[in-house]
């Protein structure tokens, strides 16, 4: 494992990006690492683009991941993966759900949602995992857990023990959603 990991979690308001970031930060805390997590809320919540920065390592200063600095970008929506692509390190990795949420300019017919996003990204990064997390989450009983399916995929890549992830879920996910979220996490974890 690297001595410092920069992650960017990106999605659309309502997709659970912030909860996913809190779980991730909790994993770092439980592992005894220094960690900082930065989010912006306010207007962005109203259907806007949401990004959270998570940095973990021996000692973290700036809470922000800047352009060209992300080891991993975890994206819950295709277009958002593309939007934040320039934040990835040259040898960084993208994990993205293939869900499409059209922004208002596209809905209004004023802009076009780019086609073939996964392919476009594939041509530019060395490591890419894309999957229909929504379908996996629906299979587990709740479409809203698709963020946690992708967390499971990320967990495998990061290399903390699975028990630590499950403990972080215990600590951060409301009790009534815990079972479904653990199932969704395991789905993702066993996948790759």
């Amino acid at each position: 494992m690297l001595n410092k990991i920069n992650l960017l979690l990106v999605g659309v308001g309502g997709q659970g990006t912030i909860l996913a970031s809190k779980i991730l930060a909790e994993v770092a805390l439980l592992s005894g690492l220094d960690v900082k997590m930065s989010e912006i809320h306010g207007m962005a919540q109203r259907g806007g683009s949401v990004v959270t920065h998570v940095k973990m390592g021996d000692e973290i200063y700036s809470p922000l991941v800047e352009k060209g600095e992300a080891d991993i970008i975890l994206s819950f929506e295709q277009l958002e993966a593309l939007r934040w692509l320039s934040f990835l390190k040259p040898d960084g990795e993208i994990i993205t759900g293939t869900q499409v949420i059209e922004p208002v300019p596209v809905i209004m017919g004023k802009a076009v949602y780019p086609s073939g996003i996964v392919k476009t990204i594939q041509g530019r990064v060395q490591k890419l995992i894309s999957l229909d997390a929504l379908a996996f989450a629906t299979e587990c009983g709740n479409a809203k857990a698709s963020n946690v399916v992708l967390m499971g995929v990320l967990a495998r890549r990061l290399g903390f023990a699975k028990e630590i992830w499950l403990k972080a879920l215990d600590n951060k996910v409301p009790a009534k959603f815990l079972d479904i979220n653990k199932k969704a996490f395991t789905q993702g974890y066993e996948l790759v």
Partner: protein
Amino acid sequence: MKVLLTGNEAIARGAYEAGVGVAAGYPGTPSTEILESIVQYPRIYSQWSPNEKVAFEVGVGASIAGSRTLVTMKHVGVNVAADPLLTFSYTGVNGGFVLVSADDPGMHSSQNEQDNRRYGRLAKIPVLEPADSREAKEFAAKAFEISEAFDTPVMLRITTRIAHSQGMVELAEPVPVVKKEYIKNAQKYVMIPAYGRIRHTVVEERTEKLVQYAGETELNVTKIKDRKFGIITSGICYQYVKEAFPQASILKLGMTYPLSQKLVKDFASQVDRVFVVEELEPFLEETVVTMGLKVDGKRLFPLIGELSAKMVREKINREMGLASSPDEEKTREGLPSIPARPPVLCPGCPHRAVFYVLKKLKMVVTGDIGCYTLGALPPLEAMDTTICMGASIGTALGMEKSNPELAKRIVAVIGDSTFFHSGITGLVDMLYNKGKGTVLILDNSTTAMTGHQQHPATGKTLKNEPTEAVNIAGLVRGLGVKRVVEVDPFELARLEALIKEETAAEEVSVIIAKRPCALLEKAASGYMVIDESKCINCKQCMALGCPAIALRDGRVTINPEICNGCNLCTQVCKVGAIRKAGEDVE
């Protein structure tokens, strides 16, 4: 025990550990979560006030009566509270008093990006700036000690990146709630001119003592490493500096007002060259320059927006003739254009109906601060002005007086929480000065934009205890407004008729558009569908700007997953092509 806290949660924790007895504020991004977090400590009395001035005054009373007191607001809220702030500086405190000013460089969720450290200098009170969550907690507690030791209110100034970033914090045991004895002292607390003059002298003497303290306190840290250059910085900028130059000599100021000339000069004398790295105003730089030092600050760094580690690295490297980092923009070359994802009114939002009608009637709309400010954006675009909290009503009156031709077309639009904040006095002015304007109060039963806080008409306190709910219609009638009417904004035809009627009236009218926020209470069950056999694809429904109504392959469609079933599009459709799913076709 170590836990992860946001800066806001850490401030709440610090106040708790320091024995705070009273906390008050008004919601405003990025400050809101401080009070929401303080609720978890039942021994602290905490409350939302109708606005920041009242919150500050509640805090003044609490301090004078003997409690350690925390008052929280966003940067522009301090403008509202500036009146008591500048005189409370004269009287000083009894129980320690800390004002949190949460500034928003980059305007993530604000109408301007003023630098409130300037209020510290204006009010002549100490300003502390934590650089992460750990310091947010420690400085909050320290601020109460300083407040009591120097008999002054203290400003704890944070920015969005401190407020909303999580970091590790070591929890400590709280001290018991601090309660000082109340002793009547009119010369200290009654600011008539005779006593005010005495207190002003006290303030100037206090500043001298604070300058002395600034040279000794552990809040300010000098670290000499590489002597080729040194950096004076504070707050989040310290993190950017450490990230960019781990080996640099740094004077990290935890207290940014007042400064100690001795401290700054000692630091400068140990390095070849000095940079000042700060966001927004050259607040530190100006003071350092008056000490006779030559430094580089705003010559290199912008007055606008946020800084970053990358920017600090590049600007200083270039200035020092050092190699700059490689360009990482290549990954973006030749990418398809990426559509923006601006914030929008939610599906089922009651505000949508109001702005649809206002646009249709071509009204001149003076707006206000809240979710409904999104009514200014396409396709609704039904807002002419937005300045600050409560400004809509006064602005409408001024437009009418200045340009009588507009009079019959002007509508002031203001939310329920904003009306209590500072709309009432505007309405009084409209009545008093014979205005003929129409005020639309958008009553969605909450303070929505900042995340659904209670306010005086919701019937609940910050602690979720039931309380008296102010009746908005009754209040308005009590002021003397004769034309007061309530309407459900989803009754589109009635809303339109009312707006026409009330703007034509020769006196002040108030229309209360009443329906709870769609995120609080779903308007209806189910979702809408389009009857393809009837739809003429005129796209009239799309003028609503609802994210559930989309154009797909040239045809209008409704996305059942996000449709709220609010029925607004059915009312807009001229050919009756939209109905609720599952309901019979007529």
